[in-house]
């Protein structure tokens, strides 16, 4: 009886174990751990052993067996009573024992055997079959990995275009040692980013780094129209007045484009008309004074530096014109045309072409002509030439003596190159370098497949390779710089156009359609804006949204507002 019960429990435990094994095998199959599937069947054996163990621990006592037999045989607890009789000699117990013997003797063993199988055991083949089936089934296909988050893909670029232009900031001179350090740091960050990109970097991280670099570059640029310099800039612009000759320079200054302003000053310094130059110098000095008085220290220093540079440029131009006048008879017609353009417009390109013409003219001089040139130079020196000339009196004398020889001619050529070479202010050079780095950052973003956010001068026509180009063309900021579109060509060529009249009078634009080069796009958020590629939305945008165009700032002065209310209205609208 005990064996049958243990076997029954073992079967039950085995069934339970097999059921667990089937579940485990299925779980292994779904997990694609195919080699472990057959081991799930071992759970059946474990369950059987557990069942047998359980049956052993729950083994029936003799009394339980007697009760079971009485129940099965219907012997009305005869066996149970006889079991408890022991060695008692009571007559009733003696009779009970005798009857118990009779009951056991006549009992059918098949009837009293505990059942081995239960109906649940009929389901044993099911989990076993499931295990076999799961072991036989091929493993399911591997699940496709989830798509990468936008920008999470790894980018590996050996040399990302544009980053080296940011690295060039290391060679730029800052306004002070602190700015030098910041520029060095930006360059170092660009170099580090380039190296990390060569090893592989997430696209979004790379874009974020570039955006930070561009933010750093934007922070280093001169902001002549910011809160601190605005009133000073306004005052400086008033100092330039409404002189026609200074109009372009004033416009460049009002746009905060120090490079364009520097170009205009170069042209003014090159001009032969002394009144224009004097006017420009006085305007610069007055503007610097006004700016300093208004507390715009940065702007005042920039203007003063520009004034000092203006004087040097003026001396260079004078020297160039002196030499050209000395050999005017030997100049080619093109050189003479360049000389005339140089006198009238002061265009640096004309200066460069004139320098080339002068070199050719000096090579063709006869000894007699060289002698006459030397004499003229001596007469010029004796006539009291300006001390500010790049060539001092003694140097001109030395040069006049050397003109008799070939070495003298060679030295003069080199001097000419120096004279014709355009000289930029420190601020302009720095702005130029920062702008170039910013465009490098933009190119780097484009190289990573992002659409760069236009910055203050991003894509503008103020490319240093052609500083003045496209300043007037304005609208096509993304167009590559070229020589076309210069509005300053006042040469002797044919410039008459044939623009037909447009039949559309009613299409006049009422709004000011002027788009200042380098001006902000409408609605563009600069700085740490959520919309920037690679940036997070947790950063507060701190760009130049708070800045206004200079034309807007000065609008109150030019508006039709009575004089007595103008200041009040201006204060009201002052940001």
């Amino acid at each position, binding site marked *: 009886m005990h064996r049958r*019960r243990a076997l029954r429990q073992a079967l039950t435990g085995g069934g339970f174990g097999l059921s667990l094994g089937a579940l485990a095998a299925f779980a292994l199959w779904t997990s694609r751990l195919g080699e472990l599937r057959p081991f799930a069947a071992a759970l059946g054996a474990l369950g059987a052993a557990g069942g047998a163990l359980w049956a052993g621990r*729950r083994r*029936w006592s*003799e*009394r*339980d*067996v*007697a*009760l*079971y*037999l009485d*129940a*099965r045989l219907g012997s*009305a*607890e*005869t*066996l*149970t*009573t*006889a*079991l*408890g*009789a022991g060695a008692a*000699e*009571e*007559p*009733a*117990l*003696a*009779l*009970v*024992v*005798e*009857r*118990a*013997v009779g009951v*056991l*003797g006549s009992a059918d063993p098949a009837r009293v055997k*505990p*059942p081995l199988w*239960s109906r649940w055991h009929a389901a044993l083949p099911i989990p076993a079959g499931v295990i076999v089936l799961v072991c036989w089934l091929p493993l399911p296909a591997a699940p496709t990995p989830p798509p990468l988050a936008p920008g999470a893909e790894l980018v590996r670029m050996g040399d990302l275009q544009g980053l080296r232009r940011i690295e060039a900031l290391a060679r730029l001179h800052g306004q002070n040692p602190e700015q030098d350090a910041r520029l060095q740091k930006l360059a170092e960050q660009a170099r580090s980013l380039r190296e990390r990109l060569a090893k592989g970097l997430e696209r979004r991280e790379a874009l974020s780094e570039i955006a930070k670099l561009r933010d750093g570059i934007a922070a280093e640029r001169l902001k002549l129209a910011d809160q601190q310099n605005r009133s000073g800039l306004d005052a400086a612009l008033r100092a330039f007045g409404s002189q026609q000759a200074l109009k372009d320079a004033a416009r460049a200054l009002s746009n905060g484009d120090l490079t364009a302003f520097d170009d205009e000053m170069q042209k003014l310094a090159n001009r032969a008309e002394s009144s224009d130059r004097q006017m420009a110098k006085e305007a610069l000095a007055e503007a610097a004074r006004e700016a300093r008085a208004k507390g715009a220290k940065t702007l005042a220093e920039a203007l003063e530096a520009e004034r000092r540079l203006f004087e040097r440029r003026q001396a260079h131009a004078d020297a160039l014109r002196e030499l050209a006048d000395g050999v005017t008879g030997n100049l080619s017609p093109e050189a003479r045309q360049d000389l005339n353009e140089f006198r009238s417009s002061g265009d640096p390109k004309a200066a460069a072409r004139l320098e080339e013409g002068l070199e050719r003219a000096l090579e063709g001089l006869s000894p007699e002509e060289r002698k006459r040139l030397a004499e003229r130079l001596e007469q010029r020196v004796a006539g009291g030439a300006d001390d500010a000339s790049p060539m001092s009196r003694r140097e001109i004398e030395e040069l006049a003596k050397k003109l008799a020889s070939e070495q003298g001619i060679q030295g003069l050529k080199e001097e000419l190159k120096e004279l014709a070479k355009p000289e930029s202010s420190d601020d302009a050079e720095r702005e130029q370098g920062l702008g170039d780095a910013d465009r490098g950052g933009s190119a780097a973003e484009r190289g990573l497949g992002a659409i760069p956010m236009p910055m203050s001068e991003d894509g503008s026509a103020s490319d240093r390779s052609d500083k003045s180009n496209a300043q007037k063309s304005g609208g096509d900021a993304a167009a590559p710089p070229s020589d076309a579109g210069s509005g300053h060509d006042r040469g002797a060529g044919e410039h008459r156009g044939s623009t037909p009249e447009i039949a559309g009078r009613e299409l006049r634009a009422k709004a000011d359609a002027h788009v200042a080069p380098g001006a902000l796009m409408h609605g563009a958020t600069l700085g740490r804006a959520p919309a920037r590629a690679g940036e997070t939305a947790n950063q507060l945008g701190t760009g130049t949204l708070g800045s206004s165009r200079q034309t807007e700032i000065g609008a109150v002065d030019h508006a039709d507002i009575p004089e007595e209310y103008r200041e009040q209205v201006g204060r009201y609208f002052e940001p």
Partner: protein
Amino acid sequence: MLRELVDTQAPMTDTTIASTFEARLALARDTSVRLKRAIAQVIVGQDTVVEQVLWGLLASGHVLLEGNPGLGKTLLVRTLSSCLDLRFSRIQFTPDLMPSDVTGTNVLVLDAGAAGRAGRFELHKGPIFGQVVLADEINRATPKTQSALLEAMQEHAVTIAGTRHTLEEPFFVLATENPIEMEGTYPLPEAQLDRFLLKVAVPSPSEDELTEILARTTGKPTGEPERVLSLADVRGLQTLCREVAVAEPVLRYAARLVGASAPGAAQAPPLVRRAVRYGAGVRGAQSLILAAKAVALLEGRAHVAFADLQRTAAPVLRHRILLSFEGEADAVTSDEIVRELLACVPTRPEAVERAAQAV
């Protein structure tokens, strides 16, 4: 061990003793059959009632018969006493019945011949001094008079005027009562009820039984039934009943049944918890075993089975279970409580029961 029982103990058993006991069992069974047959000459139907009264007789316990008037309760007792060679007495309980009317009293007896009219007290025994006492309509007397039976029923003795008088054995009280709801009745005190081994519910006769009753009682009077059992026979049967063996699991089952009838017991079924105020006590468990022994004896067995306990549970426990207010309000009967106990209290361990039921 069972195998050892078969192999070793059987030869050691005194087969003579066993045979003797078996013969006594057979005799008892034969006697009871004859007794039933004699009673059946007078009483029509009521087999269960007669059977249960015999349980009480064999187990030396008192029996309370409850039923509506006219169901033959008194006739049954009178017939039974006629079949037994025992002294019969009857007490008709009425509201003005006094305890001394039951137990008896000392009466002053004057000696007529003596000078000075000297007298002495003589005990005038009451009807309690019988062997088969019929306490007819016991609940019509006041509780004070009902309580006069307490000492006699429990100790088989009566104390009158400070003198204790032992009653002659066997002493067997058969009481009848009308349902409590009937007018002019007093409920028996719990202590009094507990003295009764069994409370037998006398049902109304069926149509056939009633027809037979009419045929017998409206014709020529029939004679008295024959005496079946002598005093010695009765005593022998009662002794034999006490010798019936009871296994420990059966005793435990009786203990579990009685224990579960208490509403505060952990194993008490929900109905008991809700509808019972007091459950059966120790005397109830004793009565259960004694009655079960009588059942086994009447069936010719030398031991008690679970089924015997289940058969006797209702008459033994129904007057020992006091319903709570909620139980009475819900019209729960004590017989329902007993059925619930039998349904909820297992006879065997669960695993054994499950294996025994498995096919």
